[in-house]
């Protein structure tokens, strides 16, 4: 068992476990903080996938941006919601969640089944890429290539995304502002 494998399993277990905690916890604050952990674990996994830039972005954007936003929102929405949550029974699976749980389990089984049936390790284009040496090696540096690609091949989506982002931010700001008349 190589170090990589060990790392992968470690990260995977951390990610899944923290995600499960997010799902199971009744406490919003704890689940938000456990969600951090999940995100960090995922970032680790990205590194294992040789996508270090994405991993960095993940940490910066998610942890630095989204989570802060969520925490703010949580704090702004007051303690009532928190109290309401605390009131409900503190069990892992409340009975009323059983259908959702069953459904999700089934869904998981189906997904795994599909993954196995599809034989993802032997996909033709993966084989093709291996043959053409189009596979990223651990020693490769991808950031240059990524930057170039963003500015050439994916320029249009890049611009579109940026405009969308702008609009979303403006919209969010508009929505979140205090209404004068209220």
């Amino acid at each position, binding site marked *: 068992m190589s170090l990589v494998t060990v790392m992968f399993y470690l990260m*995977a277990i951390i*990610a*899944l476990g923290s995600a*499960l905690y*997010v*799902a199971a916890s009744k406490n*919003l604050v704890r689940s938000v903080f456990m*969600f951090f952990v*999940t*995100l960090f674990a*995922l970032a680790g*996994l*990205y590194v294992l*996938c040789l*996508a270090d*830039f*994405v991993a960095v*972005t993940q940490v910066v*954007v*998610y942890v630095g941006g989204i989570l802060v*936003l*969520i925490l703010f*929102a*949580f704090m702004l929405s007051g303690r009532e*919601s928190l109290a*309401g*949550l605390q009131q409900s029974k503190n069990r892992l699976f409340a009975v009323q969640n059983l259908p*959702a*749980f069953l459904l*999700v*389990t089934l*869904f*998981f089984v189906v*997904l795994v089944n599909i*993954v196995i049936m599809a034989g*993802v*390790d032997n996909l033709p284009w*993966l084989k093709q*890429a291996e043959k053409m040496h*189009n596979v*990223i090696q651990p020693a*490769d540096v*991808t950031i240059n290539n*990524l930057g170039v690609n*963003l500015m050439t*091949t994916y320029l249009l*989506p890049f611009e579109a*995304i940026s405009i*969308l*982002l702008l609009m*979303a*931010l403006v*919209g*969010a*700001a*508009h*929505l*979140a502002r205090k*209404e004068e008349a*209220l």
Partner: protein
Amino acid sequence: MITMTHYLVLSAGLFCIGLYVILAKQNAVQILIGIELMLNAAILNLVAFSRFDKLNNSGQTFALFAIVLAAASTAVALAIILNVYRRYRTIDPGKVNQLKD
């Protein structure tokens, strides 16, 4: 050796957990977290597959896009949640039922 199957199963697991959160939770913020979990599961797939595209880096590029978009959507969603909270004094989506007949 870590194969694609490992990644895909992992992401499937994360996806399902996210799904569960969405279905079962009664708090809009938690549901939002569920959505983020699902998004991350998808991003994980993209990143995992992007190993086999050294030239174009399409997977990683779109992973980046997805992250950024997730950020934007989260911002909007939180704004909505705040507004909902102001109007109804609750963020339980089950209780926001003014359109029900």
